């Protein structure tokens, strides 16, 4: 409960810090657009030839909503991570990659694609099992990808807001040194 209350203030704060600069809005929009196109091409909803067409059949609505959420999260996260990299010495969050890779892998119908065919041809029965798993649990995997991206968002927002706390409260630092040695080592390392 306390965490939720603090998130209500820290998340908007992190957003304000990053997106007050139009460059990061631009990055977010660019990344969102790229992923939106990729997901919809993989989902066979967007076509560029022989005529540019987008269509949304009934069976694709759920997937379309999920991929839109994933694309939005990717846009926000990449922009925030770029901000963190440019403004601190903190390393890039791995959950951004795992979430985005899972999102891409689980997008579309793996068994229908060239990669699926390649997997089946190369690995035979194991390839079929792998593509079956990706196709049958596609929605669950996509939701897992969103969960990982949300974790990445929480993580990157922490980095942005924590870095402010360190610079503003030296007295807290002194207090933390009087606590257990492991507690005091953690903020110094980050």
């Amino acid at each position: 409960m306390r965490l939720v209350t603090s998130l209500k203030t820290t998340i908007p704060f992190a957003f304000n810090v990053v997106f007050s600069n139009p460059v990061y809005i631009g990055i977010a929009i660019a990344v969102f657009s790229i992923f939106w196109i990729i997901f919809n091409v993989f989902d066979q909803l967007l076509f560029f030839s022989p005529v540019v067409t987008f269509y949304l059949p009934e069976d694709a609505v759920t997937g379309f909503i999920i991929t839109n959420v994933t694309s939005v999260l990717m846009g926000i996260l990449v922009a925030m991570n770029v901000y963190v990299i440019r403004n601190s010495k903190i390393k890039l969050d791995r959950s951004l990659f795992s979430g985005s890779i899972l999102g891409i892998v689980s997008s579309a119908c793996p068994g229908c694609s060239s990669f699926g065919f390649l997997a089946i041809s190369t690995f035979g029965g194991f390839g079929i099992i792998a593509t079956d798993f990706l196709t049958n649990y596609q929605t669950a995997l996509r939701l897992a990808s969103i969960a990982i991206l949300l974790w990445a968002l929480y993580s990157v927002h922490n980095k942005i807001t924590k870095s402010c706390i360190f610079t503003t409260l030296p007295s807290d630092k002194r207090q933390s040194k009087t606590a257990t040695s492991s507690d005091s080592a953690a903020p110094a390392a980050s």
Partner: protein
Amino acid sequence: MRKITLLTIFATIGLVILGATLLPSYNLRQVAAQQSVSNAQLSLSMLKQKGVPLLGSPSAHITIIEFADFQCPFCARFAKDIQPQVNQTYIQTGKVNMVYVHFTKFGPDSVTAAMAAQCANDQGKFWNFYNILFKNQGAENSGWASKDNLKKFALQIPGLDTQKFNTCLDSGKYASLVQNQLAFGTSLKVPTTPAFIIEKSDGSNLDYLPGAYPYPAFQALIDKKLSIQ
């Protein structure tokens, strides 16, 4: 240094994704390069010899060849959403005919379903069975296309002799035909399911649609072919 690493990572991901997106059309361009070799192979008369089910008039000047698998979700999308529009506008009016090639890449249930569909084709009911299978498509290789279930699906087709159908399915009559059609699709480097070749019925003037393209894409290619006749 960190910026370079970041750029490298994103560039690699971007290239992989771009490759995956472009691979199907690249493969079909390879088929286009072999067009002179494939013309005779892809003519309607040759396809009929391979036992492919035909929808529409045999004398139509344009043929759509569908490479599909009854377990493929995008094939089901085509069958439910797009094929009825193509059928109504072009096939029922005698301008176009359509054939189906079994491209059973999804595993054992795909082969059983394909064999059952060929058994229905023996009685001229392939396309009824095609619609029923795609309407009832289940999770991949979950047993939804077991012989027992396929026999139940066959009961839904009016006028089908189920006794004959069951005997045909149990005997595995079409196992080799389904394998041959898969080999045929593989030899053409069909990169994805569904995949379509739209051509003149003699196998010339080929166009490719690798995926469950929406109706306007079919319309554009078919109208172009009709206009140059």
